[in-house]
């Protein structure tokens, strides 16, 4: 790992790939110390916000061993029902060399894991096990993507929790309640949660 300072109240810890990042994020989240105010997992980094006790936090980060996914309790994946009717479904099929039916089955027949959140409350970046669905973002982002839209971008899949602009390739839609600020926890998709999409 490489540790960078991000000002006097945060460390940015960098890893070679997403798998290692997720393993370290789990370990950091499980053993967090009181000097740490927030952890922000991302694709290759975990940002550690702290209270100014930099040296203590740095020692804790360096001493933390990555936690393998297999050591977690096995929890049943959350099932998200999807109608595969997205505007970009045919473009995704063209880009991947699959038929539309193959795109749908590739998406709905693998287990996805939430790697990290961001972009909007309740938005989770999901990673799968089947690399055939890796597609670039749309060259021209949409100004409005409806709430519940299911999309693909790069190595990730995701569901828009609310209407917003967005550049992901849309393949379907769901009415799953992804975000409810009154619920505890408010986000259905949290780092480490596994997901299966069910074709309706």
């Amino acid at each position: 790992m490489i540790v960078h300072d991000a000002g006097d109240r945060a460390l940015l810890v960098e890893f070679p790939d997403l798998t290692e990042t997720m393993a370290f994020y789990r370990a950091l989240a499980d053993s967090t110390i009181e000097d740490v105010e927030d952890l922000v997992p991302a694709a290759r980094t975990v940002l550690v916000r702290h209270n100014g006790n930099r040296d203590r936090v740095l020692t804790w980060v360096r001493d933390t061993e990555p936690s393998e996914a297999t050591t977690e309790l096995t929890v049943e994946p959350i099932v998200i029902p999807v109608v595969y009717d997205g505007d970009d479904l045919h473009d995704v099929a063209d880009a991947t060399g699959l038929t539309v039916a193959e795109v749908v089955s590739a998406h709905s027949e693998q287990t996805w894991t939430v790697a990290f959140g961001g972009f909007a409350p309740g938005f989770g970046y999901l990673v799968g096990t089947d690399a055939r669905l890796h597609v670039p973002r749309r060259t021209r982002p949409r100004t409005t993507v409806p709430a519940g839209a299911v999309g693909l971008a790069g190595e990730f899949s995701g569901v828009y929790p609310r209407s917003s602009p967005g550049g992901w390739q849309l393949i379907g839609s769901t009415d799953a309640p992804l975000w409810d600020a009154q619920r505890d926890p408010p986000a259905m998709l949290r780092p480490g949660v596994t997901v299966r999409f069910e074709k309706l």
Partner: protein
Amino acid sequence: MSSLHVLASGPLCTVQDRGRPGYSAIGVGRSGAADVRAHDAANRLVGNSIGCATLESTLGGLRVRAHGRVVAAVTGAPSPVTINGVADGMYCTIVLADGDELFIGTPLSGLRTYLAVRGGIGVEPVLGSRSTDTMSGLGPAPVAAGDNCPVGDGSSEWPAEHWALPPERPGAISVVLGPRADWFTDTESLFAQDWAVTADADRVGVRLDGETPLKRTSSKELPSEGMVVGALQVPPDGMPVVFLADHPVTGGYPVIGVVRSFDIPLLGQLRPGDSVRFTLRDLAPG
């Protein structure tokens, strides 16, 4: 229960406290007062704990009428304050009788003023905070004419302070380099010039404009990574954006440096047209 009836809100007025830390992993940023120091001072002047919510007024224009007796204080950007049309002061305790009208005019310099009431603004919290996060849409809607802001029961000891000294205006804002300073050909350009605050300035961030753009060593893509308040994020045009309280949780442009936490409140007072200078500080104390 006493309350503030809003007669005019000005360009933007939101309820703010010290934000909702701890939810970044599910895409929720901290938010909170853009000038935390002024927010805290306002609370102290009315005997609140600093966690109480205040009204954050952008460019003034806020007019409220007290329902019941309300103890209040105004802090932040130096602005004319009147009670029933008669000039009053900032950074001091103000007692409003039932029906009194308090008005905060346009700041002479700076951008944001804070109106605290003894007991705090008592709107419903969301995820433990009463802050409006303009980025994620969490928290109460911006304050509008016709609203009635309830006064809560969050006061502590009375009075904490009768009067507080407004902060001095600094010459330069101190910056720690990194985490992606090595993505730039030189970091000298950041410190060797004045930066102008553009009109593109809100609670998410402030876009700066300078004569010499910050040049990248390569145009490679940065996978999105966690962002902090005070980060100087540099898009491809080389003009930095400095992030404020409602910044996105993650971002995909490299951060050349981060404003030191002590100077973060100054960022909340940057006003379009202002000129800013940065000074290099390392992480060693002092």
